[in-house]
C-alpha cells in the first residue's frame, strides 16, 4: 500500500513539468501555431530560475524570472513564425538548440562549470512543511508547484472553453479567415496564446530546477517532447492532455520503482519502458484527426 502510494506520488511529481509545458503547448496549438519548442521553454525556465534564485536567495524571484524566460522564448517563436512567416517546426528546432547552447554557455560563464550550477533552495516554506506533515496529501503533493500544475488544468480548460480569448483562440486555430472577417486580429490572438504558453513552460522549468535544487546541463532531458506527445494524445483538450501527462508520469514512476525492486530484469530494459510505452500509447491513441485545422499555416495566407 505504501509502495503504491509512492508510485502514484512519484507519477504526480514527474508529470508536473509535463503538465505545465503541455498545457502551454495545447494553448499554442489551439491557436494554430505548432509548438515543439516546449523543450526550450522548460530549459530556459530552469536556467533562469536557478540563476536568479541563487543570486537573490529567493526561489520566488527565481520563479518570476523563469516565467519571464519562458515568455521570452515564445516571444521569439511568435516573432519568427507570425511575422517573419518562418516554418513553425524549423523555428522550434532552432529554439531548442539555442536553449541547449545558452544553458551550456551560462554554466561556463557564471559558474565556470561544464555540468551544473550551484545549489538553490526549493519552494518549501514553513506553511508548506505543515502541508507535508499531512498523512496522504503530504506525500502526494511534494512541492507547491505540483499543486499549482493541477489547479492550472481546470483554469486553462476554463480559459479555452468559457472566455472570449478562448473562443478567439479556437477560432483562429480553425479558420483564421473567418475570425479576421469578423474583426478579430488573428496575429494578436496567436501572440497571446504563445505568451501564455511561455509562461506555463517557464513554470515547468522552475519546477525542474527547484526539484533538483540546481541547474544541470540539458536538464529538461526531452520532457518538452513528451509534453508535445501529451498534447496530441490529449487531442488538444486540457483535461485529456493532463491525463496523457499523468500516464507518462506513471510509466516513469513505475520504472523507477521496478528498478529499485530489482526483479531480475536488466536495468536498461526497464529504463526503456516509459519511452517504448509512450510510442505504443501514441500509436494506439493519438490521431491528428482532431487537430486545429489551421495548425502550422501562416497568416495571412498567400505569400
Amino acid at each position, binding site marked *: 500500500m505504501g509502495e503504491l502510494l509512492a508510485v502514484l506520488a512519484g507519477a504526480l511529481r514527474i508529470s508536473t513539468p509535463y503538465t505545465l509545458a503541455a498545457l502551454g503547448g495545447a494553448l499554442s496549438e489551439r491557436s494554430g501555431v505548432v509548438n515543439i519548442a516546449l523543450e526550450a521553454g522548460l530549459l530556459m525556465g530552469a536556467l533562469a530560475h536557478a540563476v536568479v534564485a541563487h543570486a537573490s536567495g529567493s526561489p520566488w524571484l527565481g520563479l518570476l524570472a523563469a516565467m519571464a524566460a519562458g515568455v521570452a522564448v515564445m516571444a521569439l517563436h511568435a516573432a519568427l513564425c507570425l511575422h517573419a512567416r518562418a516554418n513553425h517546426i524549423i523555428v522550434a528546432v532552432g529554439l531548442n538548440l539555442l536553449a541547449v547552447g545558452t544553458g551550456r554557455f551560462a554554466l561556463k560563464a557564471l559558474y565556470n562549470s561544464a555540468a551544473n550550477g550551484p545549489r538553490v533552495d526549493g519552494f518549501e516554506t514553513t506553511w508548506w512543511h505543515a502541508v507535508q506533515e499531512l498523512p496522504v496529501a503530504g506525500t502526494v503533493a511534494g512541492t507547491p508547484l505540483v499543486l499549482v500544475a493541477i489547479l492550472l488544468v481546470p483554469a486553462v480548460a*476554463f480559459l479555452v472553453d468559457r472566455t472570449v480569448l478562448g473562443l478567439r483562440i479556437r477560432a483562429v486555430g480553425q479558420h483564421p479567415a473567418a475570425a479576421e472577417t469578423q*474583426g478579430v486580429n488573428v496575429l494578436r490572438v496567436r501572440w497571446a496564446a504563445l505568451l501564455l504558453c511561455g509562461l506555463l513552460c517557464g513554470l515547468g522549468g522552475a519546477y525542474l530546477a527547484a526539484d533538483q535544487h540546481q541547474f544541470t546541463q540539458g536538464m529538461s532531458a526531452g520532457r518538452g517532447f513528451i509534453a508535445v506527445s501529451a498534447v496530441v494524445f490529449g487531442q488538444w483538450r486540457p483535461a485529456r492532455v493532463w491525463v496523457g501527462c499523468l500516464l507518462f508520469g506513471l510509466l516513469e514512476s513505475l520504472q523507477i520503482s521496478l528498478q529499485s525492486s530489482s526483479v531480475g530484469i536488466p536495468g536498461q530494459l526497464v529504463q526503456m519502458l516509459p519511452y517504448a510505452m509512450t510510442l505504443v500509447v501514441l500509436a494506439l491513441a493519438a490521431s491528428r484527426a482532431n487537430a486545429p485545422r489551421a495548425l502550422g499555416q501562416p497568416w495571412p495566407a498567400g505569400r
Partner: protein
Amino acid sequence: MTVTPLLEAVELSRAYGACVANERVSLALRAGRIHALVGENGAGKSTLCRMLFGLVRPDAGRILVDGRAVTLRSPRDAMAAGLGMVHQHFMLVDELTVAQNVVLGREPRRGGRMDLARAEAETAELAARFGLAVDPRAPVGGLAVGVQQRVEILKALHGGARVLLLDEPTAVLTAQEVDALLAVLRRLRDEGRAILVVTHKLPEVMAVSDEVTVLRQGRVVGRLDTAATSAVALSELMVGRHVDLSRRPRTTTPAEERLRVEDLVVRGPDGRARVNGVSLSVRAGEVVGIAGVEGNGQAELVEGLCGARSPASGRVVLCGQDVSRASVRRRRDAGLCHVPEDRLAQGLVPAMAVADNAVLGVHHRAPASRGGVLRRAGIAAAAQALVRAYDVRPADPALPVAALSGGNQQKVLVGRELSAGPRVVILAQPTRGVDVGAMERIHAAILAARDAGLAILLVSAELTELLALSDVIHVLYRGRIVHTVDAAAATVESLGPPMLGAGVAA
C-alpha cells in the same frame, strides 16, 4: 437621386501586377434596394466586393458611406461603417456553435468571461426577426449548406450591417434553398437595408434585384433597372456577344450500351454505404444526367466508377468488360475518362504548367513520352492543340495552371479528358464556378462529344445544365436513384422534390 446612398463606390481602381481587376468602377447602394452585380469570372466582381469590405485597398477612387468618404483598412473598419459581407466560401468555424460564430469578434461578456447564454439569445432573436431558422446551439459543421448561409447572414446582421454584400450567395444552394434566400433578401430590403448581390446567375438577378450593374474586364459596361432589361440582354452585356445555353435538338440517336452499372455499393471512408445499390446504363451518343443535392453519394459514385475507390459490391461493365475491380489506369486504357468535381484538388496540378497538365493521364503513351522519357515536342504540340481548340486564355502553355481563371482551368481539364480518345466520359460538376463564356464552350464540347458517339455520364448540381445537356436524368438521394425522368419532359420544379427525398420511403 434625392436619397444619399448608404454606400457608394466612386471610380475605384485596383490592379494586381499588370492585371487590372477594376478600372474606375462606380456603384451606389441605396436603402431599400437590391442591387445585382453581374459579370463573368474574372470580370472584377469579387475584387470590388473585397474593396468595399476592407479586405483589399483600392489603388485609386473613393468609398462613401452615407455620403462621407471613409478609408476601410480592414473588415473591422467596414463593419464599424455598417457593412456586412456574406462570403462565397463561408467564413464559418465548423467546430463552434451557431451562436459562437455569430458573436465572434464582439462577444457579450459577463465579468471576465463570455456570456454564452446571451450570445444564444441574441442569435435566436435575430433569427426569428428575419425568418432565418437556425438552432443557436448547433455546431456549424453539421449544418446543411443552406443553413450555414443563414448563419453567415446572421453574422452580418449581428454586426449591425445596414449594407449587406453577398458574394455568389446561390452558387452552392438547391433551387428550394435559393427561393428561401431570395425571400430573406426581400425582407431585409423591405426593412430598409441596402443589398448587393454578386452573381452570374441571371434568373436570380431578374427575380430579386431592383437594379443591375454589369462588369466586363474590370469596367462597368451597363447600369440598368431590372424591370427594363432581360436575362438575354444582360448575358450579352456580360460576355460582349450573343450566347446560347438553351437545349438544342439532337441529330443523332444513341447506339450500343457502353457503360453498365449493376447494384453498385460504394462505402465512404467511415464505412457507411454512400452509394447503395445504384444501377444505370449509358449508351454511345447519350448523355445521362445525375441530379441530387450534394453529399447524396455523387462523389462516391464517380469515384467508384473511375476506380479511385473500390466498390463494396456490384458491377461496373465498360464496353462489355467487367472492370469492377480494375485500377484507374486499366479503366483509362479501356476508354474511360473522368473530369473530377474538384479541378484543383483532383483534376490538375496547379503548380505545373498547362502543357504538363494537358498530358497527365496520357503521359505514359506517345506522343507525350517514349520508353519512359518525356518528349517535350510531343507535349508542346498536344498542349498547343488543346489551348487552341478550347480557347484557353491566356494562350500560353508554359503558364502554371494556378495562374489561370477557374473557367480556363476547367477548359484545360475538360479538353484533356475529351481529347484522350475515350469511349465513356464521366463529368462531375463540369462547370462549377465557371463563367457563362467558359460554360458555353464546355457545353458545346460535351454535346460535340455526344454527337461523336461517346457515352457520357454527367453529374451536376446545376439543374439547368442537366436539363440542357442530358437525355435521361436520374435523381440520387441518400445513395439511391429515387427518380428517373426523360430530360425533355423534366423541369427544375419537378426535380426539386425528389432531390429533397419527397416521396421516398424512409
